[in-house]
């Protein structure tokens, strides 16, 4: 099927570049580049020892107005409950279907409202990150049956569990994690989340809590012996 609009744009590009369609060997070389992507400039803040990366992840997430609690693997549920209590938030939570979040309410301190996609008025959402990026204190959230993307955006309070082992250096390590978890291409929605939502659109005054969550709390699970909590 020919598409005249498509042809006119592509031929316009070729005419402007004063050439015809690219020769087969050039196209093959470009495709090799697409198949084996190479990092360009990886900044020093994206590199370091395990302990340094986890520590930097915490510092940068807090600089972006997120809060972080480092907890032992067994203490995730109580940590979530403690945060909600301290911030005067309801303890009824919408939780992603991720099996790693199964025992969340075992302590009896939380009520799981639902597993999976949140309703528009769920106040608190709890999800699990694929990775954390030390470079900028960013959470990498990949959509899938266990991880609804609307959970990252709809609730007023967004709580994300991330494992210290999953805290990596920078964007390049994020791509590697993503390619390992999804070898056939990225899932529908990949969110890089750095702090709670914000706007500066009224007189350039920074305000947290625009359309997305008003607060972002990260529960960092200390499961990496090479990066012990201080």
């Amino acid at each position, binding site marked *: 099927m020919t598409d005249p609009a498509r042809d006119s744009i592509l031929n316009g590009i070729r005419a402007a570049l004063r050439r015809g369609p690219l020769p087969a060997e050039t196209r093959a070389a*470009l495709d090799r580049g697409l198949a084996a992507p190479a990092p360009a400039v990886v900044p020093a803040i994206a590199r370091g020892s395990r302990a340094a990366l986890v520590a930097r992840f915490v510092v940068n997430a807090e600089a972006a107005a997120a809060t972080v609690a480092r907890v032992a693997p067994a203490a995730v549920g109580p940590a979530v409950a403690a945060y909600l209590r301290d911030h005067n938030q309801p303890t009824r939570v919408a939780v992603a279907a991720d099996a790693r979040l199964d025992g969340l309410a075992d302590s009896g301190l939380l009520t799981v409202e639902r597993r999976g996609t949140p309703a528009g008025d769920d106040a608190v959402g709890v999800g699990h990150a694929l990775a954390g990026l030390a470079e900028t204190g960013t959470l990498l959230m990949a959509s899938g049956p266990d991880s609804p993307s609307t959970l990252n955006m*709809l609730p007023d309070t967004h709580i994300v569990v991330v494992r210290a082992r999953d805290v990596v250096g920078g964007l390049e390590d994020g791509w590697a994690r993503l390619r390992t978890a999804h070898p056939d291409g990225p899932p529908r929605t990949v*969110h890089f989340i750095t702090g709670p939502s914000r706007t500066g659109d009224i007189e350039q005054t920074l305000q947290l809590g625009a359309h997305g969550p008003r607060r972002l709390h990260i529960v960092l699970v200390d499961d990496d012996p090479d990066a012990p909590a201080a």
Partner: protein
Amino acid sequence: MHVTSRQFKDNARGAVADANLRQSLATMKTGFRAKRGVAVAALPEFEALREAGKAMKDHTLAHLDHYLERFEEKVTASGGHVHWAPDADAACRTVLDICRRHNARLVTKGKSMVAEEIELNAFLQKNGIEPVETDLGEYIIQLRHELPSHIIAPAIHVRKDQVADSFRDTHTQFPADRPLEEPRDLLDEARTVLRDRFLTADVGITGANMLIAETGSTVIVTNEGNGDLTQLLPRVHIVVTSIDKVVPTLEDSSIVLRLLARSATGQPMSTYTTFSTGPRRPEDPDGPEHFHVVLLDNGRSRMLGTQVQDVLRCIRCAACINHCPIYGAVGGHAYGSVYPGPIGSVLTPGLASLEEAANLPNASTLCGRCEAVCPMKIPLPRMLRHWREEEFARHLVPARARWGLRLWAFTARRPALYRFGTGLAARALRLLGGRRGRLARLPLAGGWTRVRDLPVPEPGGTFMARYKRRETH
């Protein structure tokens, strides 16, 4: 693209006299500019990233046809559709067709400069579909029936009491005497009103900061979260974007991500960077069921291989706008194009025409700050000069200015005559200035002296005359 740049001079005169606007623009220095400075200083690799960004984008533009084809293949393979739109009209019609096919009445929109460029809102409205802007700044100017005056802070020209007035006029469902003095009150009200729109919209339209050829992903970079609610909640997600946004791989997108937020707002990373690939998968609990990408050309391919090709490297961070002394004095609306500032003055003549963009290449002091801060190293001053030369060559410069330039060129090519002339002029000006030492009026330069006096040249002759005498002070 509706361009009213012919009125630039009148607009600028009005803008300079607007006290509200001056106050709004003053916040740019302490806001965007200072924050960018801190963020850039904190990243030692920033300069290396600029070089890498330039090289990556130059390579992509040289092989643009190939990367666009690969992008299309990947979008299709992931279950989405790519629509090619040579011009604004084709893009608007494509979006309308998709909306009609899904019986859409209410459309939410994330912030998109391409949608502004093609005037999508007006087109949808005319055809019975209600578009609602959801970025706070865009929402404010939609209520005020205005164009954006800045590419990342569209309502930068609006004061908070003006926002309150618009909200009181529009949101009549709330008590008339509610407090709306604080930015927080305004934000909370907009959040409540728009939350309902997010949940009921039939179609969500976003732009794209990048397109990834490797994966067929579209990328948006935002802070408010509105772009995500726009694309996740409705059944249909339409991405309205342009052909220059493609980059080869995810690794290449890292370069842009590390430059973009730092150059724009001074954040190391924006709050939300979202990669969208195709529609929701059968096993996904949420996300749109349909995914469409509208790829706009609208004059961009024509710029390849020309003196202004480099402008297609632009990542729309607005650093050049934030640092431009002209923009800082007159604001965005004066330019008469949705793309204001240095980037707009280079881009608009290419997208529309030099005739329509009249005045824009001259709306610059060529101070060079825009090029110095551009994360993609776009030589904006050189391109402004290129458009000025084109203006002259195509007889778009008024006769009097042409004759003036000819006369200047004639003397400038004859050093002896030039020196004699400038020496004579310097003496004449000193004589005219008399004891006051300044001139309030000048023949042929009334525009210049209307708002300022000209100090008379110092005694001792011209620079050249003094250089000859080796005067050192």
